């Protein structure tokens, strides 16, 4: 109940880290929630060899596309819940009313979202690549492109999640908003892996993915913060 006459300043890094820590802790407490997209990735990828036959040449041809499309769908599946719980329990209002910029806080939330979806997907992908007979020359490119690309997917997904969080049934709308924005990442992600498999230099397409990420990290939080404010305003 102290009444400090001077303006209480908020530490920016403190607010960023507190939000990041809280989200990771929440995911740890609700482990089944964040396992869902990973289980989806694992199950769908392991169903493909059963569906299209175990012919190694055929699988190897399709592997980069399968891995990337399924990872993309898993990211989309996960982004729906990004702001849902915070919206329902009023935490989002408190984030907007914090003196720390909303830009930093949504960035922390998106980063924790990537650490819980994109990062584990990246770690799982070499395992599934072996299952899908992807030549070993493509493994490193797959991991790199997946790590960089999925981070962009998280930031793009967060824009859609922020816009649809106020709607009761935002699921379909969310996919309509973010899928078109996912497509460039998908194209360059798959072509990175394909170039590596064919023995071509893949650093160029990887650099394009990196450029996407640089743009997403700097600009997407502006859009996410604005989207979240609009959703709470209603």
């Amino acid at each position, binding site marked *: *109940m*102290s*009444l*400090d006459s001077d*303006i*209480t*300043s*908020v*530490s920016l890094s*403190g*607010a960023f*880290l*507190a*939000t990041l*820590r*809280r989200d990771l*802790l*929440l995911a740890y*407490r*609700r482990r089944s929630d964040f396992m869902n997209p990973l289980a989806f990735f694992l199950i769908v990828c392991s169903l493909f060899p059963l569906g299209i036959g175990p012919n190694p040449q055929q699988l190897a041809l399709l592997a980069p596309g399968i891995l990337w499309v399924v990872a993309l769908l898993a990211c989309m599946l996960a982004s729906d819940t990004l702001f849902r*719980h915070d919206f*329902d*329990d*009023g*935490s989002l*209002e*408190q*984030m*907007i*009313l*914090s*003196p*720390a910029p909303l830009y930093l*806080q949504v960035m922390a939330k998106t980063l924790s979202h990537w650490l819980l979806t994109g990062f584990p997907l990246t770690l799982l992908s070499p395992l599934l690549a072996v299952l899908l007979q992807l030549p070993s020359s493509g493994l490193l490119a797959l991991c790199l492109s997946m790590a960089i690309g999925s981070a962009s997917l998280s930031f793009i997904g967060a824009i859609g999640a922020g816009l649809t969080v106020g709607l009761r049934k935002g699921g379909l709308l969310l996919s309509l908003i973010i899928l078109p924005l996912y497509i460039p990442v998908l194209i360059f992600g798959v072509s990175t892996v394909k170039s590596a498999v064919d023995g071509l230099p893949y650093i160029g397409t990887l650099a394009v993915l990196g450029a996407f990420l640089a743009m997403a990290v700097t600009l997407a939080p502006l859009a996410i913060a604005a989207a979240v404010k609009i959703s*709470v*305003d209603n």
Partner: protein
Amino acid sequence: MTPLLETVDVCCERDDRLLVENLCLHVEQGGIYQIEGPNGSGKTTLLRALCGLSSRYTGEIRWRGEPVKKVRMDYLSQLLYIGHSSGVKAALTPRENLAWHGAIKTDATQKTDHAIEAALEKVGLYGYEDVPCFTLSAGQQRRVGLARLFLVPAQLWVLDEPFTAIDKQGVAELEGWIEEFASNGGAVILTTHHQLAIAQSVQHIRLGNL
């Protein structure tokens, strides 16, 4: 003296219904303002507009004489809003919840664990610091949210139905805290249907008589 918060001809609408018309409110230091009205009369809508959560109003809201849009950071660092949903995560413990609330509202480096414990003790949750909030009762969860009153330094409290789910003794305590805060120079704006038992004069703002 410039009032702490001032509204000039504020009108709020929701779903094409005009709820608040030409409200000119002067919130002075040490004042307690109770917003009254039947359900759906726009109490929450008005509070959300005052906090800056809602932009659906016309007119001007001033903080220490300056439009809030200009001095937003200063305003937010002096404002404590507790809404219908208290922002308490059921999966986290009261200590973890308050650590986050403290960090986004104040300089976290100065907020020690000790301050959180003191705030929790004040709201009667001593001994519950490290149990997950979903094991607490609705009233206790509400109290976790109220513990922010003691953790976050502020000049203005905006409380939306703060007495919900709080027991009789808790209501009396909360009234005491509001009174003490006001007598220390803070200002409180609250909505409640409950008759406040506060010795100090409470300004009433009635909505829904349009």
